């Protein structure tokens, strides 16, 4: 097990370096001089030259990448142009809100997805299966930002039950675990949960169907096991793959939250990314994407390890 974990961690290093390279190059594919973004509108020639040296834009690209990477490894992702504050602290504060949203959505989406998937796979080709499959396919086909709008129309505009935007009463930034604050989480979490719900349902349905058609299930039944016991075997066999899919989905929710956070003005990393893009705040854009991508890589690593821990077949291969 330990050797497996060590090997997996070693594999991650080149991935992390390439992710950093892609994030670094993002700023350099932007049209125009990257200096323009940090330069005041009325800057003199001398100031421009001074800043160019200060930011290292006059050095060759590989050198710039090396310097940037070195600073990033020390937690220095530069400062936001809009606010002047360090990028890392801005991103981390926002990411905690996104994690909260993603975890809430995961609780809804994974529970429903597992439930629907198991039922649909177990009662294949019955009406229950058809209903669950239809819900799943609608879930993966929905433009989730539109679903968010529709939910706002129904529950905020028409019924006036839940708030439409924000993450707390009076636009305050502080979060508290009471209904006054949780009300704000309900609609964004439901909206975010729809895609993972659909994907988990489809995966678990297919897995359950495959497992039930294998010979060992026949043997279990022939030996006289009760159907609940057979079901336990099905769950055990489906768990590793289901876990991998759920891990990946959690990563997608963390990294792909920009659309939903924009619809609900949820103050997470997606909304931060949105403002970074439209204020041309390149250090903030670069830093947010780097942090989110590293979260995703880390999550994939943890999923691989967890999968190996519950499925002895993986370690051997």
């Amino acid at each position: 097990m330990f050797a497996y974990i060590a090997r997996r961690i070693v594999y991650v290093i080149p991935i992390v370096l390439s992710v950093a390279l892609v994030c670094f190059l993002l700023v350099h594919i932007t049209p125009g001089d990257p200096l323009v973004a940090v330069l005041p509108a009325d800057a003199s020639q001398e100031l421009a030259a001074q800043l160019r040296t200060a930011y290292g834009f006059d050095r060759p690209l590989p050198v710039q990448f090396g310097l940037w990477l070195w600073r990033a490894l020390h937690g220095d992702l530069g400062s936001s142009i809009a606010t002047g504050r360090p990028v890392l602290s801005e991103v981390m504060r926002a990411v905690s809100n996104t994690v909260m949203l993603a975890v809430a959505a995961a609780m809804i989406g994974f529970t429903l997805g597992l439930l629907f998937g198991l039922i649909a796979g177990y009662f294949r080709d019955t009406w229950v299966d058809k209903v669950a499959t239809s819900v799943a396919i609608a879930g993966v086909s929905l433009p989730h930002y539109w679903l968010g709008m529709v939910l706002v129309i129904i529950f905020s505009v028409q019924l006036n039950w839940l708030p439409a935007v924000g993450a707390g009463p009076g636009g305050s930034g502080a979060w508290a675990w009471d209904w006054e604050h949780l009300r704000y989480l309900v609609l964004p979490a439901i909206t975010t949960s729809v895609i993972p719900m659909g994907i988990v349902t489809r995966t678990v349905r297919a897995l359950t169907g495959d497992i039930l058609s294998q010979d060992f299930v026949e043997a279990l039944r022939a030996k006289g096991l009760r159907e609940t016991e057979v079901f336990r075997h099905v769950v055990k066999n489906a768990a590793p793959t289901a876990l991998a899919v759920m891990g990946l989905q959690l990563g997608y929710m963390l990294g792909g939250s920009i659309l939903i956070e924009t619809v609900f003005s949820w103050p997470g990393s997606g909304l931060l990314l949105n403002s970074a893009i439209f204020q041309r705040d390149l250090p903030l854009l670069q830093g947010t994407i780097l942090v989110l991508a590293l979260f995703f890589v880390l999550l994939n690593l943890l999923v691989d390890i967890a999968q190996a821990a519950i499925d002895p077949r993986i370690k051997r291969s």
Partner: protein
Amino acid sequence: MSAMTDSALQAAPTTKARGYWSTVARRITRDKVSMACAFILVLIFASALLAPWLHLADPYQGSMIRRLRHIGTPGYPLGTDELGRDMLARLIDGGRLSLIVGILPVVLAFVIGTSLGLVAGYVGGKLNTAIMRTVDVFYAFPSVLLAIAISGALGAGIVNSIVSLTIVFVPQITRVAESVTTGVRNMDFVEAARASGAGPFTIMRVHMLGNVLGPIFVYATGLISVSMILAAGLSFLGLGTKPPEPEWGLMLNTLRTAIYVNPWVAALPGAMIFAVSICFNLLSDGMRSAMDIRN
């Protein structure tokens, strides 16, 4: 004796065995769901294409006194938008840009990804490692994040959003193409072609392409659903089409401010995205089961 053989030959089966693709086509035309989806898609495509000849209202002509009319207002069957422009005309006309921006990236990625995957899978060795490890790097980003990162860095615009979505889909199609190709490469008929002196290019084009295209095509059809949602999503954020051009994602964005006045008109463009997306998803599922002849 010879006469008997002749007559036996005459009596040989007269019906030709049905080929693989004609069997698949027959199976899919019998699938009601797939046919219904195909019909809806044809309807949306045709109306978008023929919009200038349908004698609709001018999708760009606004009017301050006719803003945000409700659905069913005489003369405005689907109401008007925040600038008083006819929604029906804009939804139909907007199909053109929305479908192009949604589908073109998948078509481009299909061509590029299939070529890369075919070469990687067939040649193998160092070239395979180089291509597939590069692909892995893009898998380290959630696809929405990657699309937004590239679009955000390149700046708003239709071309930029098509480019960024293509970059998102190429690795996914390459992976599928590579794994299908690797599966086909070691089959006997490829060996036979090689033994009869066919060069690698001929083998890939004549013998392998036909055998790998099917599964890749089905996968790409499913991707169109994701691509439609993402492309409209980029416009919704303000990274795609610019006003006053009608496009479903952008319309959803500009109508967002109207949800307190006329909510259901504001939700209409999203319903169009949903319809196209779910039809492509169901069609992809239908094709997959139609091509799975074993069942």
